[in-house]
């Protein structure tokens, strides 16, 4: 029959198309598996850090606003004494503080002052200062949904990076240090 060669090509195609779709699907799913659904791209990157005025953790009568850090590259680290992952991150922050890499301001999120200061006494205090956000209102303004979170803020007060979850030594080496060097230059 005249249609024979065409039918042969059709058969190869019939086999190849579903295979291609299947392989494509596998690639998509494989990429999906490697991504952390908790890491949501922050809408704050490249925008000015939201302003706030909060009292300091250790001096409830003294205030702090982000404007005080203008001209410096700094980190805003969201932490709490009830936050389990913050314990994982804390040695890295202590190390950063010891090496004097960057000023770190702590945002003590939905915590009791007494618990927070005791926690710092136990685990060390890497912060230039901590501010106390007892009701979590400033946390909402920064889109915080799971401590620890860390914002890298540049000299102009613009948020350049957000780390969701603990800063691991790997994150520090591969992301934070190069970014800080670039922002400080």
């Amino acid at each position: 029959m005249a249609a024979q060669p065409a039918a042969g090509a059709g058969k190869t195609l019939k086999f190849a198309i579903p295979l291609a779709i299947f392989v494509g699907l596998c690639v998509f799913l494989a990429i999906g598996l490697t991504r952390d659904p908790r890491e949501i791209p922050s809408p704050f990157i490249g925008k000015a850090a939201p302003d706030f005025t909060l009292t300091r953790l250790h001096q409830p009568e003294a205030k702090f606003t982000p404007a005080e850090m203008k001209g410096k590259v700094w980190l805003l680290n969201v932490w709490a004494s009830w936050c389990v992952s913050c314990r994982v991150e804390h040695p890295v922050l202590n190390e950063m503080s010891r090496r004097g890499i960057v000023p770190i301001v702590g945002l003590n999120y939905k915590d009791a002052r007494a618990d927070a200061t005791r926690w710092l006494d136990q685990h060390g205090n890497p912060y230039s200062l901590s501010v106390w956000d007892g009701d979590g209102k400033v946390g909402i303004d920064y889109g915080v949904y799971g401590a620890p979170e860390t914002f890298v803020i540049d000299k102009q007060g613009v948020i350049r990076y957000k780390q969701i979850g603990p800063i691991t030594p790997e994150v520090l080496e591969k992301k934070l240090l190069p970014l800080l060097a670039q922002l400080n230059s």
Partner: protein
Amino acid sequence: MKRFLLALLLAFAGFAAWGQATEVAHPDIAVENRLKAIAHELRCLVCQNQTIADSNAPLAVDLRNQVRGMIASGKSDDEIRAYMVQRYGDFVLYKPPFNAVTAFLWVGPALLIALGFAVMFAMFRRRKALAEAAPAPDESRRREIESLLAGDEPKAGR
């Protein structure tokens, strides 16, 4: 034993209601109804498959209170949604907006259906062309087919 367990269950059942009641001391029905409608469209970021209406996570409670405050101060639903998107991104909306990132998500299903129909029509047309191109059966073959259709066993038998 069963009775004791039932009593225990009932004793603790009350706590659930108690937990609900503590969120606001004197709920305003109009505010609560609007809150319910908005909160059902907003994702709780701590427990991602729940809305902030369903979730009991501390952040969901805070956000519900935030929405309550905004409703009370006369903000529109769109303003409240914009407030949430500004902080948490489009991800917070259960009904994502149509933009460059979500275009494939919205258009994809329609494209797939269109593709399905296109393949179906192509197959119909090919089948029709094949049927027309097939040689007409000759007389003896036609008789055999007719007898088969009439229910006679084929001669070779099975």
